């Protein structure tokens, strides 16, 4: 039973991402020192700092499965942040109402992208890239310079733990995953894969690809809204020009986790992919502080850290090409074998038709 489940997991698209994640986890624990890594404080910081990014990646994975994408995810997160802060500051609305407003705005931004990609059928990459600049402009129009604040109660709560060890920030991620789990198990959960993999066949099966993508974009908007709330609580103020790189980074995290373009992969890919991303950056930070301790007089700027972690992530991306190629090869060989086997069946009647000349 357990062996069976493991076997299924081994063949699932998320497996490569899981291995990458595991490697990054071990690397991080070793470099940081297990004693300091496995503390409530360190885990809490990890979740609190990265919850927005992980949620954005989950949202992006939803679109990738549906055969589309949205590079403007990142600035949409900033948009939510800006709306929440300014609604509180200028309209004097309570924080919770501002958050709901933020989610609504994120859904609207998502719908704009849906209209470009699914209705007008513009290439998703280009359309959402162009949208990045439009939304960025709107952000700055709403809030020209970083400003504003959030009540202490809220951002303190975000940074705290329930029962002394469960980070509240992690609960946001869990919440998003529960929504996803529900969605995965209703009809939409299968239709999204069909539409992503082959819109024409999905249409022939009585599914409307445009409607399915609409639902995917709305859901993605809600997720982005949640990510926006997280980032607001994290920085406890507003900044119109933050998180822009989340868009492209979430895309690479999805690919790292094993998602393909259109109908291949699942949400675990997004979780492992973003986990790998986060842990590698963390590891590299500790690696450099280790160097500083070991080598007297060693000092570099933080650009070097980014450089090293980006190179590792790039290598990870290259890895996915290799593993994907291996999978394809294995698949093709499997089919050839089946084909050859069935070919024998096939030849018998043909030979018989020819009058069975000397076959018996």
């Amino acid at each position, binding site marked *: 039973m357990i062996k069976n489940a493991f076997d*299924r997991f081994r063949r699932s698209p998320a497996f490569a991402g899981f291995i990458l994640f595991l490697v990054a986890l071990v690397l991080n624990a070793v470099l940081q020192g297990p004693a300091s890594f496995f503390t409530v404080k360190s885990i809490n910081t990890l979740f609190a700092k990265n919850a927005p990014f992980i949620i954005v990646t989950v949202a992006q994975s939803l679109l990738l499965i549906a055969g589309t994408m949205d590079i403007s995810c990142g600035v949409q997160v900033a948009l939510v942040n800006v709306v929440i802060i300014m609604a509180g500051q200028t309209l004097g609305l309570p924080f919770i109402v501002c958050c709901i407003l933020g989610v609504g705005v994120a859904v609207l931004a998502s719908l704009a992208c849906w209209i470009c990609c699914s209705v007008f059928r513009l290439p998703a990459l280009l359309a959402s890239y162009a949208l990045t600049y439009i939304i960025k402009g709107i952000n700055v129009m709403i809030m020209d310079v970083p400003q504003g604040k959030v009540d202490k109660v809220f951002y303190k709560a975000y940074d705290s733990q329930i029962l002394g060890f469960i980070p509240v920030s992690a609960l946001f991620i869990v919440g998003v995953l529960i929504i996803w789990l*529900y969605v995965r*198990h*209703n*009809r939409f*959960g*299968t*239709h999204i*894969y*069909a539409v992503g*993999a*082959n819109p024409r*066949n*999905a*249409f*022939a*099966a*009585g*599914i*409307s690809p445009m409607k399915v993508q609409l639902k995917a974009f709305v859901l993605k908007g809600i997720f982005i809204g949640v990510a926006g709330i997280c980032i607001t609580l994290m920085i406890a103020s507003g900044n119109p020009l933050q998180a822009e790189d989340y868009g492209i980074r979430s895309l690479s995290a999805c690919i790292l986790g094993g998602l*393909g373009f259109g*109908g*291949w992969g699942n949400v675990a890919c997004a979780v492992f992919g973003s986990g790998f991303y986060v842990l590698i950056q963390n590891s590299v930070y500790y690696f450099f502080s280790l160097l500083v301790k070991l080598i007297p007089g060693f000092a570099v700027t933080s650009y070097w850290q980014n450089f090293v972690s980006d190179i590792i992530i790039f290598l990870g991306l290259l890895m996915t090409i290799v593993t994907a190629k291996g999978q394809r090869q294995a*698949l093709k060989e*499997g*089919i*050839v074998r*089946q*084909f050859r086997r*069935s*070919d024998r*069946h*096939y030849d018998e*009647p043909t030979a018989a*038709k*020819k*009058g069975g000349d000397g076959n018996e």
Partner: protein
Amino acid sequence: MFELRAIEKRFDAVVALNGAHLHVEPGEIRALLGSNGSGKSTMIKVLAGLVNPNKGEILIDGEPVEIHSGQDSRRLGIATAFQDLSLVPTMSVRDNILLGNEPCNKFGIVDRKAGDDLIDALLARFHIDCDPNAYVQTLTPSTQTMLEVAKAVSLKPRLLLLDEVTAALHYDEIEVLFSVMRELKEEGVAMIYVTHRMNEVFQVCDTTTIMRSGETVTEGKMSDFTLDDIVYYMTGQRPEKGDGTAAHGHFHAEDKTPLLDVKNLSIFPRVRDLSLRAYQGEIIGIGGLQGQGQSEFIRALLGAEPFQEGTIEYDGRSVAFKSPAQAVKGGMGFISGERNREAMFPLRTIEENILAGKVAKGNLFAYMTPKSNHAFANDAVEKYSIKIGELGHPASSLSGGNQQKLVVARWIAMQPKLLLLDDPTKGVDIHSRQEIHKILRQCADEGMTVIISSSESEELLSISDRIYVFYEGCVSAMLSGDKKTPEMLVAAMMGMTGGSQTSEEGVQS
């Protein structure tokens, strides 16, 4: 009762259906027959909601209905098993069968238990041996086809459309399919069955409708037709009495060495064992139903697709080109019917399009003067009477026929030894088609060898010296001289020749 009346469908200049009609009663299995391009598949697609007809009406139980999408079609109780399959390869068998029809509980969650029971019963009914969790892309083509049919049947339709589903099936699977069809017939399901295998038609169908060039030619009870009648209605000519086996005409240049000599070529998965010879100055036609390995064969010659077994001897040496660029250097030319995908640069100018081939052959940094380019392009345009506005206009400004002439001109200007054409006149009007034929004949007379694959019988018969007919990845017949008749061709296309090997050996001996 289901009825289609006076259906018309045009794709730009091409008329796919021209006042076709069809009707089928509950508990009836109707064969829909016709040669390539007669509009059978389009009729099926009209009922399936994938093609919206320009004119005509669809009646169910005497009531006119509108079918605009797959959803409409399903709602009216119509299920379709498509020739090119509607399965999603990256999804599991379970998800594919239930797609669009998942049983749900009251919270909107898909009820796995109910789905599993349904699938187990269905797989057992069709004797399909596979894991419901397996991805469809890991299954053999024949299993995939059985799943396609099973999926359609699982919808419990009132009208079941089967579009050439047996083409990929094995004999035992066909038996299973037929027994299921007979069961459904007892249950009162109406069925429309499209196939090219005549023996199956007589085995399982009650009635038939025969189509030719988008029109319904005749219909009636199966028992009122003989095989000869069917071929007559499909081609418009009576087949001569004979055993139907393709004999072989000996080509006049037996003693000459062939320019191209292909032996026992196999290309996974479509081509199994192909041998073919072409001599200098000859036009070789390649016929067959769609997807019998014609495109793969041509692409393998060109080096665009690798082949697994067999040898290709070209121009006196054994070759296996690794890329089309090498093949072009070796004196081959290639014209594809997929103009937009494989041959044209639609946004570039007409002049550049004509020059593209010449440029590919010359040195990378060879200097080309605008004047000589202009003259070259002008010559080509005049010689092949391509109707253009100006040389500087984009190639997309031309009509389909002129675009294709442009591509032909590009290659012929390079004087290849061997010119390969893959369905070059697809979607080309009759006039341009004749002109292209004239150009090809002229080139052959000047010593060029031409291999042309076409899905249209008339085209093959009118232009080629010899026709190789492909059937399931083998040569089913080689037709030349007085054997080159429409009836022989249609018969060979459906594999109705006993000696696929003998004809080929005859040529080679």
